[in-house]
């Protein structure tokens, strides 16, 4: 389980996260929702150990940050993070070299699923193909948790559908997925839990099935209620 406990993050005097607390369990898809600047990406980066927090604790299966967390979680950012001159095949070799949990078979499957070209250079990829490569790199790791930052941001409808198909496939089964997205419609039916953020705080968190059955509302309905107040 990913436990975010009373986490505060300040950039200078600005508080980006303010005593933020929530959990994300294995086998569930949890979505962090919020308008721009509410601290969604900072939260993912903090969980991935990429930005230190000012206060509070983040535990992955009960352990604080250490080098082994990257054997437990993969962070899939919304921007390219491999060198522009590297070809896709070089990137795959790089990952295979450094990550003991690299699953070459799954990487091959995803590579064909996304219809990528191994000789394409990272710097020449479109936004959609870059998102696919990032997904390939993250999902080919045999890790328990996957953090995805805006996987649908700025990409065409066909690529979005292809990426959404990944969620419906067995690739994220049994893993804990923590995702941030604006394009909630694409994956609303797949979500288990939603955490609504505002000004770095949790405004509301709920299981999607609960609000569907008890209140007959969708995630978007709840978003309207919370953010229009």
């Amino acid at each position, binding site marked *: 389980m990913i436990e975010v406990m009373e986490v505060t993050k300040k950039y200078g005097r600005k508080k980006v996260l303010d005593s933020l607390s929530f959990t994300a369990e294995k086998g569930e898809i949890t979505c962090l929702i919020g308008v721009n600047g509410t601290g969604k990406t900072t939260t993912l*980066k903090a969980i*991935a*150990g*990429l*930005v*230190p927090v000012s206060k509070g604790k983040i535990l992955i299966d009960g352990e604080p940050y250490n*080098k*082994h967390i*990257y*054997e437990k979680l*993969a*962070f899939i*950012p919304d*921007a*390219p*993070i*491999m*060198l*522009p001159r590297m070809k896709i095949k070089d990137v795959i070799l*790089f990952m295979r*070299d*450094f*990550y*003991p*949990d690299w699953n070459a078979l799954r990487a091959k499957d995803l590579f064909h699923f996304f219809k990528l070209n191994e000789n394409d250079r*990272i*710097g020449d990829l479109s936004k959609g193909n870059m998102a696919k490569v990032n997904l390939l790199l993250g999902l080919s790791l045999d890790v328990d948790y996957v953090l995805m930052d805006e996987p649908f941001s700025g990409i065409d409808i066909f690529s979005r559908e292809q990426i959404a198909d990944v969620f419906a496939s067995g690739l994220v089964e049994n893993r804990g997925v923590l995702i941030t997205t604006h394009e909630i419609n694409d994956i609303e039916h797949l979500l288990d839990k939603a955490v609504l953020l505002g000004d770095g705080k949790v405004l509301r968190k709920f299981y999607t099935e609960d609000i569907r059955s008890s209140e007959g509302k969708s995630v978007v309905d709840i978003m309207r209620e919370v953010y229009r107040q």
Partner: protein
Amino acid sequence: MKSFVKLVNFEINRFAKIYWSLVAITILSQFTSVFLTVHCYISQANGIVYHQSLPTAQLAYVKHYGSISFIDCFGTVWFMGPIALCAAAMVFYIFLIWYRDWYGKHTFIYRLFMLPVERWNLYLAKAASILLMVLGFIAVQIILLPVEHFFFNAITPRIYRMDMTVADAVLSFPYFNLLLPGAAIDFLFHYGLGFTVVLVIFTAILLERSFRMKGILLGLLYGFLSFVLFWTPDFLFEVLLPGVLHQQELLWIEVATTAIIAGYSILLGGYLIKYKATV
């Protein structure tokens, strides 16, 4: 250890094209220097000898104007220029090796930070890459010198030439003496000191990457304090208490001080990259 070696290999490969270009420039430029130095000398000599038309004119020329030796090739821009260029490139690269990962077209620092290795391996791998590249340049120069010497001998007529060994030429030329010190202890001290400076800069960069604006000041302060610590034994035993220690003893104290600075730079750098540096 395996990850560390992979990281060093990766870092060196990232700079390989520029590195080998610099090596190629050095080789071409230094051979050009040897050729031009000899060519100028012989042209001048031939001009004067031709006008005098005497069988002993060449000897007279050498007697009057002096002979040419291998060391004469060192003092040209063609010879020292590429060395300065390589040195400048390495100084520039000490900063670039970090900042390109944050400010490059793609933020590769995300991937580096997320590798399943102890983060201070990143710090040490970058430092080791710089050290290996510098030593690589030195190795290339050490290999080049005898070849250039052979080339010099091959194109210079015996009558004009003053023979000297490569070692003599290097030791007689002040800049080379700095680059390739004669004694092993001097070599270790010079390059150990240079490596320590790299570590101090690395740690200052990580202070900046951790605390941004405040980090710039902290980095400058850190560099200044390290500099003060390095000069403390010199100041103490050369200015305040002269004659208390022999030069050799002072040198060993300086070696120890340098090792302490290198040690705490690595410790602080390792701490910063693990707990404080941010993407």
